[in-house]
């Protein structure tokens, strides 16, 4: 009995410590991000490379998934909704599903699968091979040189990829709609813009921003949690993926709830 209480106590203490450490890590990253933006920083190249990897190299898969989603919604919507006399609702559904809900979330999932795993693996390997210590030894703060460019790179990329996902989804749905219920390009986009309220765009950008911050912090934090063995690297990668999905979905639910309360 006393043993169980001891174990529980140790677990609680270690969880509190971990939470405090993670909070400190997050706050320092935010603080260093401001310095990074303000100063001429040697980490700019790392930032550019991160945007190239996370943003540019993911364009193909993002456009493919965005277009496919647009096609699915338009096909289902144009076949089902007119049966209930609600054919015009298709534009609102397109905007709500693609722009407001699934756009930011699916983009985040793709980035977790592509970039969060890569970041955790890379940083974990750097810890094992003492490269992080080498950075410290020459006077480079690992947070400002390794974490901040990845934090900014992933967050910026996620916002841009979300916009790209929206464009792909909405344009893809237009082309497919021509086979089912042809409308002119102008009419399609007029209806779409009418359904696209400013708060929806705002909500979508806020989600991307928050997801980007969550994914990059989780990936870098877990990468640094490796202590000295390469066998720990797959474990932290799995953690990054699991935590990334979970926290993004929780954040999505909170932002959506707040959105309905405010607007």
């Amino acid at each position, binding site marked *: 009995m006393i043993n169980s209480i001891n174990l529980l106590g140790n677990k609680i203490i270690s969880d509190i410590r971990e939470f405090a450490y993670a909070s400190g890590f997050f706050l320092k990253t935010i603080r260093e991000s401001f310095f990074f933006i303000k100063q001429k920083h040697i980490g700019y190249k790392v930032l550019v490379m991160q945007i190239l990897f996370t943003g540019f190299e993911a364009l193909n898969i993002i456009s493919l998934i965005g277009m496919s989603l647009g096609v699915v919604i338009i096909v289902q919507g144009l076949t089902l909704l007119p049966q209930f006399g609600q054919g015009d609702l298709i534009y609102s559904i397109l905007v709500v599903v693609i722009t407001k809900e699934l756009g930011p979330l699916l983009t985040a999932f793709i980035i977790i699968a592509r970039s969060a795993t890569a970041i955790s693996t890379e940083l974990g390997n750097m810890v094992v*091979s003492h490269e992080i210590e080498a950075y410290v030894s020459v*006077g480079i703060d690992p947070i400002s040189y390794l974490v901040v460019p990845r934090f900014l790179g992933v967050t910026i990329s996620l916002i841009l990829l979300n916009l790209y996902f929206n464009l792909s989804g909405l344009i893809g749905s237009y082309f497919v709609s021509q086979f089912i219920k042809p409308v002119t390009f102008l009419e399609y986009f007029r209806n779409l813009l009418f359904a696209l309220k400013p708060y929806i765009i705002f909500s979508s950008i806020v989600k991307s921003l928050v997801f980007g911050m969550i994914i990059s912090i989780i990936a870098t934090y877990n990468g640094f949690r490796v202590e000295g063995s390469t066998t720990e690297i797959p474990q932290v990668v799995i953690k990054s993926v699991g935590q990334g999905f979970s926290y993004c979905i929780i954040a999505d639910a909170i932002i959506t709830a707040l959105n309905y309360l405010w607007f």
Partner: protein
Amino acid sequence: MDELDIILELNDVSIIRNSKRIIDQISLKIFKKKTTVIVGGLGSGKSTLLKTLAGIIPTDSGKLIIEGKSFNSMSVSKLKDFRKRNGFMFQDSALWSNKNLYQNLSLPLQLHFPDMSTDEIDRIIKKTCRSLSIDINLNDRPAQISSGNRKLISLARALITDPEIIFIDNPLSSLDFETSRIIRETIKKLKYREKTMIICTYDPEITSMLSDFMIIIKDSRVYAYGTYNDIVKSNDTVIRNILSHVIDKASNFDDDILDLISPDFN
């Protein structure tokens, strides 16, 4: 000993990992322009002690004091100045694998001398490589070169800013004869130039020829600490046993002095 300038000091420092004390309540002083050699058995905590002295591993208790100031309360600019004045050669080289060799050498210069021109950076890198007989393509990545060359590049990176304090962790482990010779000669030249050096090594030549002070580590604690002459004269069996692995029995102290003052070191 106390008449010498103290550059680094550990006060009752402990490092704890997974509830195990890797460094256990260590207190010691490192003197300016002197060479201190850390010796001890495998897993005794030598490398951790070296990294703690360099401020790379934070202490769990106790204090690291750099020129009279506590490391933990140093301002960012003072800390940057300290980093600029020291170089660290890692046991496993620890070169940045996502950068080529040239970038590995140029990064410390770009960081500490932001106004330095690319031509000047290039000149310093070439000069440092020449002094270490490095004759390889600097556009290669660390994974593309031999472990000996990686070790040389690691030493070059540690020396690129011409630091005052140099930390060297097992410089000659798993090296061929020629690379060992180059590193030994370089360390001798640094000694001649009165650099402060803290070296973890098993090498008899470096230990017997270059050390002014010795630290004997056993079971994560300082077992003995003093001048080289005092330590080698000790009759303690534990010290004798540890020293038997590192002191070159063939070395002659007078010869060593002659070596050091020879014009070859200029």
